[in-house]
């Protein structure tokens, strides 16, 4: 198997909430011991509901946050400690596409200035060629060259997201963190953006970390998928396997909650509706994060964090699969 291009090991990202005069200092454990690997040219999908820490992890990978502990290695180099020149070099390779196409483009800059900016910063291409490169990038993402003098607010959401992608591509990155790039877009536009990202991957061999809460689109684009819950990665597996046969009770509930665009099957489908809400990530108890909502929770789930183990070629962090070799299929909720 090829060596991973990105390797995250036991990564924690914690934020301190400053205590007031009468309140104790609290810690938001946004990412709590996550390990994952992304191979060159593949797409790793990271799914989970809001507040599960998936975006925080993505931001730690592009060096917007510094992990509290653990390592993030890009091509074997630990990037958490990179500074100055080396950090700049890393930024050329690893880029990010943002969620909100309305907020991620500077409203006071023209399209041309926006897409040029990364080239200006890193002094790529001779000055005179940059304009031509901007036009080329615009065409890559399916926009017209005469849009170049317009301002972001004149575009629709999908068009803006494509401008954002063009800006990201300006640096010829090898790895792109896509932070919910389609969740703010309309259905017909989502498919456009997904196809665009896939085309770019095919053409340029870029690897993606694709963060989203829309499970059907993630399945479509990803080779491997990791499911996050409350700062923990509860299950990792090849995307088709994971969807066909989810192991972790949370994955099962999550997949069952996804509405399917087929009225007959929707009527017949047996759905697991998870009760309750996601607990707060402020000073979580040292137990299975999902224990409070899990339909199969056992006593020990409330006592310790289940370690991640290999089951059927997948990684699952759940006590159900821990001992005695109970076959995964027996436990699956049907």
């Amino acid at each position, binding site marked *: 198997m090829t060596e991973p291009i990105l390797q995250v090991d036991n990564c924690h990202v914690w934020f301190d909430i400053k205590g007031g005069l009468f309140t104790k200092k609290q810690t938001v454990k946004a990412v709590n011991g996550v390990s994952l690997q992304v191979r060159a040219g593949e797409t790793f999908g990271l799914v989970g*509901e*809001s507040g599960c820490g998936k975006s925080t992890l993505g931001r730690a990978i592009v060096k917007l946050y510094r992990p509290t502990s653990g390592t993030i290695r890009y091509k074997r180099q630990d990037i958490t400690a990179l500074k100055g020149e080396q950090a700049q070099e890393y930024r050329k390779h690893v880029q990010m596409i943002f969620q909100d196409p309305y907020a991620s483009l500077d409203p006071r800059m023209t399209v041309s200035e926006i897409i040029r900016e990364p080239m200006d910063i890193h002094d790529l291409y001779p000055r005179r060629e940059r304009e031509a490169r901007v036009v080329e990038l615009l065409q890559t993402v*399916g926009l017209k060259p005469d849009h170049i003098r317009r301002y972001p607010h004149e575009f*629709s*959401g*999908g*068009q803006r997201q494509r401008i954002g992608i063009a800006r990201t591509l300006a640096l010829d990155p090898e790895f792109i963190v896509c932070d919910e790039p389609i969740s703010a877009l*309309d*259905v*017909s*536009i*989502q*498919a*456009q953006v*997904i*196809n665009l990202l896939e085309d770019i991957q095919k053409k340029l061999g870029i690897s993606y970390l694709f963060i989203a*809460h829309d*499970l*059907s*689109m993630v*399945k*479509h684009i990803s080779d491997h998928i990791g499911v996050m819950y409350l700062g923990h990665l509860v299950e990792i597996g090849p995307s*088709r396997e994971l*969807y*066909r046969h989810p192991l972790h009770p949370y994955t099962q*509930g*999550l*997949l*069952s*909650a*996804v*509405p*399917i*665009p*087929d*009225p*007959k*099957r*929707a009527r017949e489908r047996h*759905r697991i*509706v*998870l*009760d309750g*809400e*996601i607990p707060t990530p402020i000073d979580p108890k040292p137990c299975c994060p999902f224990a409070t909502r899990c339909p199969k929770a056992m006593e020990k789930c409330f006592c310790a964090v289940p370690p991640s183990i290999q089951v059927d070629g997948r990684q699952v962090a759940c006590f159900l699969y821990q001992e005695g070799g109970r076959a995964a299929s027996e436990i699956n909720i049907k």
Partner: protein
Amino acid sequence: MSVLRVEHLSTQFATDQGTVQAVRDVSFSVEAGEVLGLVGESGSGKSVTMFSIMGLLPGNGHVVDGRVFLNDEDLSVSAFGSEKEYEKKMQTIRGNQMAMIFQDPMTFLNPVLRIETQLMEPIRNHTKLSRAEAAARALELMEKVGIPSPEKRIKQYPHQFSGGMRQRIIIAMALACDPQLIIADEPTTALDVTIQAQVLELIGQIKDSLRSSVILITHDLGVVAQTCDRIAIMYGGKIVETGTADEIFYMPNHPYTKGLLGCVTDPESDTNEPLTPIPGSPPDLLKPPAGCPFLDRCTQAMNICRDYMPGQTVFSPTHTSCCWLNARGGEAG
């Protein structure tokens, strides 16, 4: 008899760039006890249609044409003669016969008032119940929408509830006066998948127990497939196709509907069929095309589509579609 009938509704917004024709000649009806899904992309006019019906348009928007009937009672400004009379009438109807559920519950809840006070408000406004009776009714509503330990929680403030719980409270407020029609504008868009499933289940239960009609505005075809009896697809300020859920999903006629279905993937299917996105961007309603609004993105567009709006083709009592392909000598498909 239809609960709601909308005929030739057109709504425009005045902006400094010109007039935006947000809704153009929209007609549809909602039968008693059914859930109508109004599907469309942002800017297709689906929310504006509902705001026009409720008389809640912002200052620069106005209904330029069309009529709205609730139980055969004409609720158009023209039927009342003046804006003032219309507004007076609508105040007795909103929250009473017609209720609305919004996407973002926090904009609808007053952060400094207890839930109890806010729940009692529509009850006291529209019924003759006493304070104590209204309070009892409020508690009953809290139970109905599945909020745990309602006696305690009814005394709390909105910020003490999570997003999903707030949405339940909004639903409780909408139910306060047993409305005949509930308009839910993207009620689950802001929620997480597992919470969305909870809220959708709740809406389904309510429909069954109350026999209210529901208009569900959404862009999520999965949500529609799961909850709606009938579906109307909107594009560029017009309704392009209507039909029962089965007709829309299994026998789509309009190229836009087909396109939309090609844009979604089934999370349960084993094959990874490629997505077939609709190219281009939605039309700019500042200068909508003279002909079919879908013209520029339609792979099957014809010369006639450019200049003439297609008429309605009726396939069954429930299934209609507006596309010139159907007029092309029966070879439509």
